[in-house]
Every structure is written in C-alpha cells, then in structure tokens.
C-alpha cells in the first residue's frame, strides 16, 4: 500500500486532501515513535496512548512540515513535546508520591533484573531492557542513532546541540549501556561473544 512513495510525496497528497494515505506514514513510523515514547514512559499502555497522540498532533500540524529536514527528524520533535507534556501532566497528578514512586520504580527495575525474572532472553529483549535502564536522554540518543537512522548532525539539530557534543554524549550513553549489560546480563553476553 503506497510503500513506494516517499514521505514528502505522501505528505503532499495528504495536504491535497487524501487523508487515508496518512495510514502509510503511521505504519512506516509507528515502531520508531512507539520505541522512542516507551523510553520516556514506564508502561506500554501509556506509550501507546502518547504515540497515538503524537500521530494526531503530527497530522494536524502537517502543513508546518517544510521538508527541509527528514520527516523522522520533524516527527521526533513532536514525540519529545508530547512526552514532556505527558510527564508534566503525570507529575501533576501524582505530586505527593512522585519522588517516592520514582525511587521505587528504579529500585524495582534494578531488583527485577537481579532476581533474573526476564522471560525473554533473546538478544533483542536483552538490549531493549538494558536500554530501558538508562536515563530517557541516553536511551533516546541511542535509539535515534541506531534505529532512527539519524546522523550526529541531525540529532544535534533536533536536540539543539553541537554534533561534537552529541558524539561525546553518545559515547557516554553506550558506555553506561555496557555497564548495565555487564551488571544484569553478564551470562547472556558471554554466550553471545
């Protein structure tokens, strides 16, 4: 279904009134958006709700997409603002127990892995779970670089950072990921190497 069309061509057709073709863009980027949102939220339900909101917002402001950057780059800015809005709202809802819960969540995440309760021990699950142990900034950076196919320059542009700063941050994020993998998945890593 319209898989041969480029993002710009699809957007042009949507702006001309072909709403149905937006489904192609959703299918093309739903995993990318969902993964990025999941780095911010703790549950898949929340991530799905926010991801849906991202696509609705993207659709409504599609006329603002100038085409001077990749659609995925532009979409990331929508992801980021939607996630920040969601987190702010969530924080307001749970102000009194916010700090306690954040601490507990982190503790549970760590202890969950120590207790070796990982059901899926596949490589894919292991990497994704290790990424989720990182801070949202680190995990976003890794996802954008490896899965979003964004260059350091493009990441710098959307994060408003110099490419060299992005490079340093990426090195540090990968080092922190390696530490998490060594701490929680040392056996699996040995099996892989």
């Amino acid at each position, binding site marked *: 279904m319209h898989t041969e069309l480029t993002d710009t061509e699809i957007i042009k057709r*949507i*702006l001309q009134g072909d*709403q*149905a073709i*937006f*489904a192609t863009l*959703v*299918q093309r980027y*739903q*995993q*990318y958006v*969902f*993964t990025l949102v*999941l780095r911010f939220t703790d549950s*898949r339900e929340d*991530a*799905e709700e926010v*991801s*849906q909101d991202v*696509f*609705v917002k993207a*659709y*409504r*402001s*599609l*006329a*603002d997409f100038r085409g*001077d950057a990749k659609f995925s780059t532009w979409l990331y800015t929508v992801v980021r603002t939607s996630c920040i809005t969601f987190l702010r709202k969530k924080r307001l809802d749970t102000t009194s127990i916010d700090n306690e819960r954040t601490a507990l969540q982190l503790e549970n995440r760590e202890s969950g892995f120590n207790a070796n309760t990982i059901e899926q021990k596949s*490589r*894919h699950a*292991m*990497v*994704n779970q290790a*990424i989720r142990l990182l801070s949202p900034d680190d995990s976003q950076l*890794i996802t954008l670089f*490896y*899965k979003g196919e964004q260059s*350091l320059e493009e990441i710098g542009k959307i994060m408003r950072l110099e490419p060299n700063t992005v*490079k*340093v941050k*990426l*090195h540090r994020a*990968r*080092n922190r*990921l*390696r530490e998490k*993998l060594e701490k929680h998945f040392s056996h699996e*890593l040995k099996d*892989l*190497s």
Partner: protein
Amino acid sequence: MEDRLWNYIDGGCSPAEKSAIETLIATNREWQEKYRELLNIHQLLNASELEAPSMRFTKNVMEEISRYQIAPATRSYINKNVIRGIGAFFLTMILGLLAFVFSQIKWSSGSQSSKSIKLPSVNDIGLGQLNKIDYSKTFNSTWVIGFMLILVVMSWMLLDMYLQQKKRGTTNP
C-alpha cells in the same frame, strides 16, 4: 582509548587516525580486547529491533484523525509586517528613552579644566512649559538606574536573538 575506539567504530575518524587505531588494535592486546568489547555492543545495538505497538494502532490513529482537520501552516497566518511593526515600536521606545537619559547627563561636570559645552536649553527651543513639570517625582535616580538595567537586558536579548538567527543562517544554507 574508548572515545577513540567508538569514533573508529562509528567511522568518524580521519584516515590517519584510522590507520593509527588499526595498528594499535593489531599490536596491543589491551586495545584489541576493548575493541572487541565495544564492537560487540555496537553490533548488539545494530541488531536490536524496535518495539511494536498493538495491532490496532494504525486503525486507532486513523479513527482519531478522521475527527480532525489539518491546521493551516503557522507561516500562513503570522504576518511578518505585524512582527516588524511591534519590533519598530519597541526600538523607537528604546531609542527615545536612551535619548532622554543622555539628555539628562551633565556633560560639563566631568572635568573642571575643560570648557563646558553649552547645550541648548528647553527655553531656546520653545519648550519652556516642560520646565514646570516636576520630573523628580518620577525620574529619580533609582528609577533611571532600574530603567537603564532593563534597557541593557533588552539590548542583550536583541543581540542574542540576532546572533542566533545569524548562526542558524550559516548552518542552514
């Protein structure tokens, strides 16, 4: 060592650096082990898959957007002339206030040896009525200093905006 190796793995180093790192990996055991370790992480990340939402996701989005319309582009309803007009208004205000502040300075009091410069009085230019207004109530020294500070901050903000715009212009040709 790690930074250099990550740079090498990402393919971001110069040919000379690349060759130097290759030599180090080939000859130095420590570099070799670290390289293998980092390459393993890099390959794991490359091979990892994206998370997938539920099967109904696309359908849900399409149902949701059917209730909305695409909003007109921001650039189509923001009139640049209005923004320029507001800018011109504030600029005129700043310049006017600056002129007022400078006119209040007694230029002759700086040095006694130098001849004082006789500035035209308000009576000379037919604005004698203004002398009757008691400015001291409003334009006392605290007020003027405060206003000058605001002006300085606003000038810095304008300069910052201008420089940022200039920077963006050079990075996005």
